[in-house]
C-alpha cells in the first residue's frame, strides 16, 4: 500500500521486504492500495496527509536507535499500549529487524527475545488465508453507514480490487461488499506484516470494519487501526495474558459492586468471568449495533485521550459527581451489562453455560446510553478500589 511505498523514500523499503521470510511473500496483497484509485476525489488531500505522517516517521526515526525500538515492540505488558505515537511508526523498522533474525536462522539470546517463540506457530500464509475467508464473511451492517463514495462501487472496480488481494469465493456478494472485503484484506495483511508478533487473529476484522467504513483512504484507515490496536493487540496474544487481565478486572468490579451476584458466580465456578470473553476480545462489537459500537468506542477513546493529556483523577476529584476518565471504561461497561442481568443470573441460572448464553445473546437488547450511564456510575464508586 501507499504507506509502504512511502517508506522507500527513507531508503528502507527494499530492505524491509528482502528480509522477510514469508512463504507467500510475493503474493502480499497489502502492497497495493485499493482506495487510492482514480475514482477517489480525495487523492490529493490524502497524499499530503500521508506525506505529513511520513515526515513524522522519518524525523522520529532519526531520533531513536533501532535497538530501543525492538525492545519496546516486544514489551510484554499492557503498558506498551501507551507508547508514544512515534513508536508505532517506528516499529515497522523493528519488524524489519525481526525478519532479519529469521532469515539468518541464528538464535542468539538477545535476538530471540525480540521474537518470542509462540508467534512462529502460525505463519503469514496461514494468516493470509484466514483473513481472506473472514473478509468475505464480514457482516454487512456497515453498509447503511458508509459514505456515499464508498456506497457506489462499480462492478469492475470491485472485482479488480478483489483480484488485487486474491479474494476468493465472493461472487455472491454485492460490489460494495466485495470492495469492503478487499480493503479489509489489504489492511489486515499490512497489519500482520507490521505487527508480526500478533499477526492476524479472528476478531480483528470486526475491529477494522467500522474504521474503513468511516475512512475512505486505506493508508489513513491503516494508521488509525494501528493506533486502535496499540491497546487492543493484547486481546489477541497467544498466551491470553491481555484477556485474563481484563477478565480479572471485570471480576473485581462485580465482586465490589454486588457480592451476592459474585457469590453466585463462585458457586457456579464462573467467577473468572469467561462468559464475557467475546465482549472483551472484540470490544462489544458483536453485542452492539454498528451505530452503538461507534458511540461506545468514541466515548472510550475520549477517556483514553483525556488520560494521555494528563486530565487524571486529581482534576476530577473536585467535581465529585462525575466519573474520572479511565483506561478501562470498556471493562466497566461489560461489568455493567452483566450487573443489569443480576436478577436472571442469581435466580434462574444454575450453570456457567446459561450465563454464557445470556451474554452471547445480548445482541439487540442493549441500550448503549444506559450502559454508559451504569458504567460511569461504577467508575465513580469503584475506580479507587480496582
Amino acid at each position: 500500500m501507499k504507506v509502504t511505498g512511502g517508506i522507500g523514500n527513507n531508503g528502507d523499503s527494499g530492505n524491509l521486504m528482502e528480509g522477510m521470510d514469508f512463504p507467500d511473500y510475493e503474493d502480499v496483497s497489502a502492497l497495493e492500495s485499493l482506495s487510492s484509485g482514480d475514482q477517489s476525489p480525495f487523492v490529493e488531500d490524502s497524499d499530503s496527509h500521508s506525506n505529513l505522517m511520513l515526515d513524522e516517521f522519518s524525523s522520529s526515526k532519526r531520533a531513536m536507535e533501532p535497538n530501543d525500538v525492538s525492545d519496546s515492540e516486544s514489551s510484554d505488558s499492557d503498558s506498551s499500549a501507551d507508547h508514544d505515537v512515534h513508536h508505532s511508526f517506528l516499529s515497522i523498522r523493528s519488524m524489519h529487524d525481526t525478519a532479519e533474525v529469521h532469515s539468518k536462522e541464528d538464535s542468539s539470546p538477545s535476538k530471540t527475545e525480540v521474537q518470542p517463540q509462540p508467534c512462529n506457530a502460525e505463519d503469514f500464509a496461514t494468516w493470509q488465508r484466514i483473513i481472506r475467508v473472514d473478509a468475505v464473511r464480514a457482516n454487512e451492517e456497515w453498509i447503511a453507514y458508509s459514505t456515499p463514495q464508498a456506497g457506489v462501487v462499480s462492478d469492475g472496480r470491485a472485482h479488480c480490487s478483489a483480484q488485487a488481494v486474491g479474494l476468493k469465493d465472493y461472487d455472491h456478494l454485492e460490489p460494495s461488499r466485495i470492495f469492503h472485503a478487499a480493503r479489509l484484506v489489504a489492511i489486515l495483511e499490512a497489519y500482520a506484516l507490521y505487527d508480526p508478533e500478533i499477526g492476524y487473529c479472528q476478531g480483528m476484522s470486526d475491529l477494522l470494519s467500522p474504521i474503513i467504513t468511516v475512512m475512505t483512504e486505506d493508508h489513513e484507515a491503516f494508521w488509525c487501526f494501528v493506533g486502535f490496536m496499540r491497546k487492543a493487540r493484547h486481546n489477541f496474544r497467544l498466551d491470553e495474558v491481555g484477556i485474563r487481565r481484563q477478565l480479572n478486572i471485570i471480576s473485581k468490579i462485580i465482586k465490589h459492586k454486588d457480592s451476592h451476584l459474585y457469590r453466585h458466580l463462585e458457586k457456579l465456578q464462573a467467577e473468572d468471568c469467561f462468559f464475557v470473553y467475546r465482549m472483551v476480545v472484540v470490544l462489544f462489537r458483536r453485542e452492539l449495533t454498528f451505530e452503538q459500537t461507534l458511540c461506545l468506542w468514541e466515548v472510550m477513546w475520549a477517556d483514553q485521550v483525556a488520560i494521555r493529556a494528563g486530565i487524571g483523577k486529581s482534576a476530577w476529584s473536585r467535581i465529585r459527581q462525575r466519573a474520572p476518565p479511565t483506561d478501562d471504561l470498556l471493562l466497566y461497561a461489560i461489568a455493567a451489562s452483566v450487573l443489569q442481568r443480576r436478577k436472571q443470573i442469581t435466580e434462574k441460572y444454575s450453570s456457567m453455560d446459561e450465563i454464557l448464553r445470556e451474554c452471547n445473546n445480548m445482541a439487540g437488547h442493549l441500550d448503549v446510553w444506559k450502559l454508559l450511564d451504569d458504567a460511569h456510575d461504577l467508575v465513580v464508586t469503584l475506580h479507587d478500589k480496582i
Partner: protein
Amino acid sequence: MGSSTATQSSSSYDLSFKILLIGDSGVGKSSLLLSFISNAVDDITPTIGVDFKIKTLTVGGKRLKLTIWDTAGQEKFRTLTSSYFRGAQGIILVYDVTRRDTFTNLSDVWAKEVELYCTNEDCVKMLVGNKVDRESERAVSREEGVALAKELGSLFLECSAKTRANVEQCFEELTLKIMEVPSLLEEGSTSGKKNILIQKQQQQQTTQSLSSCCS
C-alpha cells in the same frame, strides 16, 4: 427470553448430551450448527471463543437434549476452546472437502487435541467433510475421508451445511452411537436428572427467598 425455553426443555427430555464441534477456521462449523438448528445458511461471521446452541429432538424413541458447542478454529483461541472438551460425549471433527490442509490438520492437530483434553475415554468421534455442494472444487476424496475415520476410530459422513444434505444425519448418527455406549448413556441420563434436580432446588430457593423477603 432464552431462559424460559431452557426451563421448558429441561423438564421434557430423557437424555442430555454434550457435543463439541472442532476443526480449522472457515471449514463451516458454525454453518453446520446453524443449518441443523434453524435451516439458515447465510454467511456467518467468525466465531470468537465459544458459543453453544441447544436442540431437542427425538432419536430412537428417546427425547434428547443436545447442547452443541461451537468453537473458534484459530490457534490463538485454543487455550480457551480446549477447556470445553471436558465432559463431552460426542466430538465432531469438521474439515472442508475443498481444502486439503483442513483435512490434514485434523490428524496432525485436532485429533491430538482430542486425545489431550477429552476427559471421556468412551467419547464418540465423528469425522465430517463439509461443503460437498462444491463438488468441482473437491480436494479430498471420500475414500481418504473413510480411511482417516477408520484410523481415528470415528464415524464418517460428508455433508453440506449450505444444501443441508446429510446435516441432520450427522447429528443423529452421532447421538445414536452415543446411546449405544453404556457409560455415556449413564452420563446422559444422570446429567439430565441432575439438571432437573438443580432446577427444582432453584425454584425452592427462589420461593423461599421471596417469602422471606415478604415477611
